[in-house]
C-alpha cells in the first residue's frame, strides 16, 4: 500500500485574480497567510492538506485603505497584526489593542485578521472588536464577491460562513467615532489565549453602542441587552455632558456577563468567565466614559 504524502503543488499566486482561479481549480487546497494557525494544526497532525495556497505574494493583499469618504477602513486579508498596531491605532483603536494582545512579536508579524476570522475560534482576539464595530467580511470566489455582516459570519466553534471556494479578501471596519476598548483576561501576562475578552465601541456619530464577547460561547457573542441599556442611558448625553454613574457601569457589566454562555474548560470555569466579563464590562465602560468626558467623577472602580 502506498500512502500519498503531501505531494500537491505549493500554489503561490501573485495576483488576486490568480488566487481566485487557483482556489476554484484546487478546492481541497488550504489557503495560508501567516500560517500561525495552519502550521500549528499541521505540526500537531490535525491538518494534512495536500496542497497549500499561499496568499502572501498576492499583490496588494497586505495593504489597507480608507473608503467610504474615510468612514471605513478596508483591511486587506494579508495585513499583519504588527501593521495594524503601527498604522491603525487611531482609526481602529480597539482592533489595534486586540492585535497588541495576540501572541508574541513573531506571531504578530505573521498573523492576520483574515486568518483569525477563517479559523473562527471563539477565542480569536479580533472577533469581539469586529462585532463591536459592526465590521463586514469581504469574501470572493470565481462566482463573485459578497459582503458578510460580522453578525452572520460565525456559525459555531471553528465554523464560519465562508464557502469552500471563497477566500477572504478584506475586512471592512468602520473607523472609530468615539471611545473604544478591548480587554482580554488570561492567566499569563502575554502570549495567552483569552479566557474571556470583551470589546466596547461607543459610536458617537451613529449614537450606537457596540459590544463583543470572546471565549465565552460557541461563537463570539454580542451583548445586546447591554448595548440597549447603555444606548438608553446615554440617550442625550453622547456629547459628554455627564450624568452616567457607576451604577450604569455595574449594570452594564452584569448584562455583558448575562449575554455569555461559557463552559468549563482547561482555561477556566464558566463561573469565572462570567464573573470576569462583568468586571471587564464595567471597567471598559468606565474608561470609555472617561474618554467621552461624560462620566461623573473620575474613572474610578
Amino acid at each position, binding site marked *: 500500500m502506498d*500512502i500519498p504524502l503531501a505531494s500537491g503543488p505549493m500554489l503561490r499566486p501573485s495576483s488576486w485574480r490568480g488566487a481566485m482561479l487557483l482556489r476554484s481549480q484546487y478546492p481541497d487546497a488550504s489557503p495560508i497567510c501567516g500560517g500561525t494557525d495552519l502550521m500549528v494544526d499541521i505540526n500537531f497532525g490535525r491538518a494534512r492538506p495536500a496542497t497549500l495556497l499561499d496568499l502572501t505574494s498576492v499583490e496588494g493583499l497586505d495593504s489597507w485603505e480608507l473608503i467610504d469618504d474615510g468612514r471605513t477602513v478596508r483591511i486587506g486579508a494579508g495585513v499583519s497584526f504588527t501593521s495594524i498596531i503601527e498604522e491603525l491605532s487611531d482609526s481602529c483603536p480597539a482592533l489595534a489593542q486586540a492585535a497588541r494582545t495576540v501572541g508574541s512579536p513573531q506571531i504578530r508579524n505573521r498573523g492576520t485578521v483574515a486568518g483569525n476570522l477563517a479559523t473562527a475560534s471563539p477565542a480569536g482576539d479580533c472577533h469581539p472588536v469586529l462585532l463591536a464595530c459592526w465590521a463586514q467580511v469581504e469574501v470572493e470566489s470565481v462566482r463573485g464577491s459578497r459582503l458578510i455582516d460580522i453578525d452572520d459570519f460565525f456559525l459555531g466553534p471553528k465554523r464560519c460562513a465562508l464557502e469552500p471556494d471563497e477566500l477572504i479578501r478584506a475586512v471592512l471596519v468602520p473607523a472609530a467615532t468615539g471611545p473604544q476598548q478591548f480587554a482580554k483576561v488570561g492567566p499569563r501576562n502575554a502570549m495567552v489565549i483569552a479566557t474571556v475578552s470583551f470589546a466596547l465601541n461607543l459610536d458617537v456619530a451613529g449614537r450606537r453602542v457596540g459590544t463583543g464577547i470572546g471565549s465565552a460561547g460557541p461563537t463570539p457573542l454580542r451583548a445586546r441587552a447591554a448595548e440597549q441599556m447603555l444606548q438608553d442611558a446615554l440617550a442625550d448625553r453622547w456629547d459628554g455632558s455627564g450624568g452616567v454613574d457607576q*451604577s450604569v457601569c455595574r449594570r452594564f457589566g452584569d448584562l455583558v456577563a448575562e449575554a455569555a454562555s461559557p463552559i468549563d474548560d482547561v482555561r477556566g470555569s464558566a463561573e469565572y468567565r462570567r464573573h470576569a466579563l462583568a468586571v471587564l464590562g464595567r471597567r471598559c465602560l468606565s474608561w470609555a466614559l472617561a474618554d467621552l468626558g461624560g462620566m461623573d467623577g473620575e474613572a474610578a472602580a
Partner: protein
Amino acid sequence: MTVTETPTRITTPSVVDGVGASATRPDGVPKVDGSFIYSSDEYHDGSLWGVTLRSPHPRARVLAIDTSQATGIDGVRCVLTHRDVPGSKTYGMKVYDEPVLAFDEVRYQGEPVAVVAATHPEIARRACELIVVDYEELVPNTDPEMSLTGQVEGLFGGGLARHVRIRHGDVATARALADVVVEGRYEMGTQDPAFLGPESGLAVPLGDGGVELYVSCQNLHLDQQQVADCLGLPLDKVRLVLSGVGGAFGGKEDLNVHIHACLLALRTGRPVRMVYSREESFFGHVHRHPAIADIELGATRDGRLVFTKVRLVLDGGAYTSTSQVVIANGCYFAAGAYDVANVEIDGFATYTNNPPCGAMRGFGAVQSCYAIESAMDRLAGELGLHPLELRMRNAIGEGDVLPTGQPVDGPAPVQEILAYLRDLPLPAGADHEAADMRTRPGGVGNVTRGEGIRRGVGYALGMKAIGFSGGMDDTCTARVTVWIRDGEPVAEVYCAGPELGQGVVTLEAQIARTELGVRTVELRDKDTDIAESGASSASRQSWMTAGAVVGACGLVRDEILARAAAVLGRPAGELTLDGPEIHDPAGHPLVPVAEVLGPESVSHAFTYRHRPTEPVDDERGQGNAHVAFAYAAHRAIVDVDVELGLVKVVEMATAQDVGKAMNPAGVEGQIEGGTVQGLGLAVMEELQITGGRIRNPSFTDYLIPTMLDVPPMPMKIFEFPHPDSPYGLNGVGEPPNLSSTPAILNALRDATGLELPRAPVRPSDLITEPPVEGAGPE
C-alpha cells in the same frame, strides 16, 4: 541588580577566564545563532525515521496487536512490538518495571505500544495509525489516597511505592510545650519540566552487531546500562554519545527514545532518527510529583518551634522511576531549614494510572518546602510575628541536628541569607494609572488601570542536600591531556558529565585554565568510552566534575613538573607550572613546557568521590545520609487584581550561598532560571489531569512564564567556602527552585488575606471582591 562577592581564589593569577570568572560558554554563541547541534538535529545519510505508537487509554489490557497493515506500507521498514525486544522487556532508573513496549497492560495514557521505522516521518506516523491494538479498557486508578491502602488491584505494590518514616525527638510529649499549634493542608499540582528541546536522538547500527546512540540525556552510563540490558547486548556493544541537550530539569533522567531507536536501527541495519513532537513530549517524560501535604507546627509564644509533624503524599503515577528516592528527599527536608527538636514525618509515594512522575529540579524538596513555608507563614500570623522574624528565630545553623539525626556541617549561613532580604529596601509602589500596562496584572490584556490591585510581600526559605544521598558510591571520572601545539601547551578535558545548559562544559575549561595555566582548552565529546560521571542532577555535576578535573589536572601537572625536574636537574617540589613556562619559587621562568614535552603528550584520568554517606534506617529514618547542604531564600513582591484574580510578580529578591561562584554569570543564570521555574509553579504551570488523561499537552495551554511574567531579580550570592568541595563550591541549580514558589504564595496570601491551599493558584482562587452581580451602586 546583582550583588556578587569578589572572587577570591584564582590559583594562577595570569589566567584569563579561569575559575571565578564569568567565562563565555562555548555553546553560547552557537545556541543563539542557530548553529548548535541539538539531538533533534542529528542526521546521518540514509537514516530512517522512528515513530512511537502510544496508548490512548490510561489503563487497558492489551489483548492483541496487529501490525500487518502497517508493515505493508511502502516506505515502512519495520514495525516492532514487545515481542521484538531481545533482552529485558522492562527498564527503569531504580527498578525495571517500565515496559520497553507494552505487553500485558498499559498503565498510563501515552505508554509506548509499538514503534515504526520508515523512510519519512509522515509515513511512519500514518503507519502507526494503521496498527490495530485490541484494548480492553479498564477503570484507571487515579486517586493517590486510595493507593495508600496498598490494596489496589492492578497497581504495583497495591499502589504504595514507599513509606518513609522519620522520627526525631518526641512529638507527643512536645505538644505540651506548644503554646500555639497551627495545622494546614497544602496541595500542589503536577508541574512539567517543559524543556524546549524535545526528546530525540539518532541510533547508528555498527558492523559488529553493536549500536551507537547520539542522544540528549542526563546520565550516559546509567542509560547505557538500561539500553544494553533491553537490547540483550554486552555494555561494550552499546556506545552512547551526548548530543545537544535542549534542557532537561530531571525529565531526561529516564529513558525516552533510547531503546526504541536502537531496536529499530539494529533491526533495519539503518541509522534511525527519532524526535518527539511537542505534544508527544508531554507524554514522553516524567513530571514533578503532585503533592498533598498535611502539616502541623507547634511553637512557644515567643516563636520557637517545638514540634513539626508532616504527612506528605507524592503520586508517582504508573511506574517507579525515581519515586522512592524523591519521596525520601521530600521527607528529609519536610521540616524546612529550621532547628526543631521534635519531628515526625511520614512520606508516601504512590502508584496510580496517572502520568509517571520522577525527577524534577528540587526532587521532592520543592513540594515539602512549599508546604513547610506556607505553614510557617500561618504560624507567624498566629503568633503576630513578622514572617522573617519567625524564620530567623528558628533558622538552622552549623551543628544543629537534622530530623534524620545528622548534624549540619559545612557553612549554614541562613541568618545572613535572611538578613539580606530583611535589609533590602522594598521597590516603590507602582503608579498604575500612569504605568505601562505591561507592569500591571493582566499585562498586555489591558484589564486594569489600577482597579482592584493589592500588593503583597512574601518570604520563603529552602534547604536541600547537594549530591547523591543515602550511601551511594558516587563517582566522577575525568581525563586531562596536555600536549604542545604551535609552541604552546594545549589541554583537553574529557568527562562524561552531561551538559544540559547548566554550563558544566564552561567550568571544565575554566578549571583546566586555572589548574594548568593553559590558554587553550579543548573539550572532548561526552560519551561512554570513559568511566562514568554520574547524572547531571542533584545539583552535583559542578562539584563532581570539578573534583575529577582538578584531580586529573593535578596528576598531569605533577608529571610535567617531574619531567621538568629531570631536564633541569632540580627537585620537582621547587617548580611551578604557569602556562607555557616552568617557574622557580621566585616566579622566574626556567624552561618552556614545550621544551619539556617536545612531541609527547601527558594524559591522566582521575576518579573523584565525595565523602561517604549512609542510608537512613527504615524505622526512624536516622542516618548521616547527606554530602552537603545548600540554602536559598526569596522575597516575593506581587500585585494582584483581586477582582479578576490576575497576578503580576513585581520582584523576586534572592539570596543564596554557593560556596564559590565558579562562574558568576552561570550562577546568576541558575538562580534566575530556578526562580522563574518556581514562579511558573506558583501562578500558572500545571498539567491538568482528569481520569488519568492530560488535558493540556501543548504550550497553548500548559503555560510557562514569558518575559512579561518575569520580574527583576535582585540577588545576593554568598560565597562561604565549603570545606569538603573543590574550590569550596556548593551546588547551585536546585535551591533557588525551592523557595520561589512558596515566597510567591505567601505574597499572594499577604495581598489577598486568602488561605490559598493549592499551587499553582488559578485566577478564580484569588478573587476577594464579591461578584459584581447584585452589587448595588456605590
